[in-house]
């Protein structure tokens, strides 16, 4: 169970978002039955918490590297991007249109403090993977009982 806290972040809704996350988790929308793929222009994300780092995965099929913008302020990560429409030429006749297109922005409140200078982002096969190193203070430390 995650600890509910109200961090001094710039995002006024972070507390609510955290509550929503917890509720979704309780409602059973866990990894096993999440089946959302290609979520239009609201790309789905995964946040994974390791002992030394955090991994944020974002599904951005059809978005090129140049159309992505990632920024970190405190413990808030923002992924912005643009999904271009399938047809780049004029005078085409669409028969089916299921994919969305347009600008998107996702704000993720990270569960731990991170070192903003040590962030790696990698885009492969339409999956954006951001690896953030935790700041020293946030890493778990084993305390020996003397």
């Amino acid at each position, binding site marked *: 169970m995650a600890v509910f806290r109200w961090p001094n972040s710039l995002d006024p809704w972070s507390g609510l978002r955290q509550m929503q996350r917890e509720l979704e988790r309780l409602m059973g929308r866990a990894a096993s039955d999440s*089946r*959302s*793929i290609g979520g239009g222009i609201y790309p789905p994300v995964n*946040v994974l918490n390791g002992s030394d780092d955090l991994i944020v995965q974002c599904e951005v099929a059809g978005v090129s590297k140049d159309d992505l913008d990632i920024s970190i302020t405190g413990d808030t990560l923002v992924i912005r991007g643009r999904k271009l429409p399938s047809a780049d030429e004029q005078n085409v006749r669409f028969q089916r249109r299921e*994919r969305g297109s347009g600008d998107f922005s996702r704000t993720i409140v990270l569960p731990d403090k991170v070192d903003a200078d040590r962030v790696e982002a990698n885009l492969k*096969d*339409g999956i954006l993977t951001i690896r953030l190193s935790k700041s020293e203070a946030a890493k778990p430390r084993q305390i020996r009982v003397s």
Partner: protein
Amino acid sequence: MTQSDDIKIKVTPSAPNPSEKAVAPLVDIYEREDGAVVLTAEIPGADKDKIDVRVDKGVLTIWADGRSVDMPENYAATYVGFSGAEYFRAFALSDEVDRDRIQAKVADGLLIVTLPRAQAVQTRKIEITAG
């Protein structure tokens, strides 16, 4: 597009056998001015080697494996919005599509299949000659 790789189209009697859990990828289909039909499917997480595009008896099937996105070990999932999936979808082709000239390529998690129209069925403007 960052980079794109061409996918070889297979023409075989047996279609791939997707598992029950396979999901239908989202597609856009549009017709270009020259009559060619372009199909764009979202297959995030699928590597070039794990994509199969086939044409058999007038049915185009696309299969891709994007399950490699699954969780790395020793990480607790704080929030999960998506997971890797196996993709499968089949489309009936019209007789007007030139089966031999179908092309497929993959870039940034998108599979783009171009289905050109056979020469014989392309719209031809007929000139009227004065009698």
